[in-house]
């Protein structure tokens, strides 16, 4: 509890500017929004140099992977084989009779091989949500498994009718206006014009390659919370910002979005972990 309190104070520091206390020099105002977008991207490139702190989680994940018997888990390439696993997910799993993405599959295996109940899995998967500097075993496992696909190209099998069906459902959800703030995913992540939310450039499903750049780096280390964010946590946070109800990880909604996003990102090289604000 105290830890959160303290780190929060640090974020407070970072956010002082937003509240308008910041003195902005005359020269700063001359920067056009376009120029600022470019400079913020430059900042992100600089952050990506060196060792990504997210890699610390992979070390922990290697141990947790064994601890929870996930070496028995088949990610589609045979029990325990994780090299390239992320690149070919989501896929259909006959044993579960369901299309699953990486995190959904991990959740299923935690039930089957680690004896967790669905409630325990959910608690395990969301233990670091809404926190900072949280070192959760779930995030660590996802990081470890994801990094084993580094260098491989995303290759979701859209010829499989089950996967294709989830892709199409995901696509429709992407454009579904819903909730008390009328958002859909496309509100922020579509269109040709470069726009930003505050200082953050928004990727667009309509600009070639950007969906790939966005998803191929998950889990991504977030400097504002000093911890990685998995794809399902990303979905949850987007939906919270969209003012939709609280997102359920490992749900068909997550799988449908993953099928659409990773399917759209086919051909992009996986580079995990990414790093961002």
């Amino acid at each position, binding site marked *: 509890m105290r830890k959160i*309190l303290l780190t929060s104070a640090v974020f407070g520091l970072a*956010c*002082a500017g*937003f509240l308008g206390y910041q*003195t*902005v020099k005359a020269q700063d105002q001359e920067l056009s929004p376009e120029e600022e977008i470019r400079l913020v991207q430059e900042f992100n490139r600089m952050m990506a140099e060196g060792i990504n702190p997210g890699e610390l989680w992979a070390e922990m994940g290697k141990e947790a992977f064994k601890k929870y018997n996930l070496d028995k888990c088949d990610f589609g390439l045979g029990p325990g084989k994780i090299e390239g696993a992320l690149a070919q997910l989501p896929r259909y799993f006959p044993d579960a009779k369901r299309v699953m993405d990486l995190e959904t599959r991990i959740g299923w295996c935690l039930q089957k091989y680690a004896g967790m109940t669905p409630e325990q899995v959910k608690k395990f998967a969301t233990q670091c949500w809404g926190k900072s500097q949280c070192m959760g075993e779930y995030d660590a496992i996802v990081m470890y498994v994801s990094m084993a696909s580094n260098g491989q190209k995303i290759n979701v099998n859209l010829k499989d009718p089950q996967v294709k069906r989830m892709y199409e459902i995901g696509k429709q959800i992407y454009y579904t206006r819903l909730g008390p703030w009328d958002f859909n995913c496309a509100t922020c992540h579509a269109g040709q014009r470069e726009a930003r*939310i505050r*200082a953050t450039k928004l990727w667009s499903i309509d600009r070639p390659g950007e969906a790939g750049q966005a998803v191929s780096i998950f889990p991504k280390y977030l*400097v*504002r919370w000093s911890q990685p964010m998995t794809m399902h946590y990303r979905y949850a946070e987007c939906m919270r910002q969209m003012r939709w109800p609280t997102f359920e990880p490992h749900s068909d909604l997550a799988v449908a979005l993953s099928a659409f996003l990773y399917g759209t990102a086919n051909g992009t090289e996986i580079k995990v972990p990414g790093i961002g604000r």
Partner: protein
Amino acid sequence: MDRRRFLLLGAVAVAGLTFAPAIKPAFAVSKLEEEIKKRLGVELNAIKETAEIKLTVPTIAESGANVPITVEADIPVEKVERLWIFVDKNPTPWIADVKFTPQNGQVFLSTRIKMGETSNVRAILQLKDGTFVMATKEVKVTVGGCG
């Protein structure tokens, strides 16, 4: 814990800390000058800017929590005692200092620092002959994301 509330409190705290000097009369020393005098034993205005120090920082930082900074110097490491990093407007302007030896082969440091608001970042080299040289760059700290 109430993260948002602390965020706000933090912001207020920073505003208080950083704006306090501004209200003081003009002859009062800034927190930065105080720190430099205390730690380096020298007045800030006695330190000369030099092009021999290459200070690489972003022009705009999307988050003040993690600002990449890299310092390189053309000055031989044998002549260098210590490298100091300061951020003018942080509640504690001193960030870090590194002592170098000839075995380093070169003056170099790369790390990530916190910045409370738009401010100058300073890399100061303390030389073996007792003098100091410095490089200064401004980083504009902005805010990203949905809020």
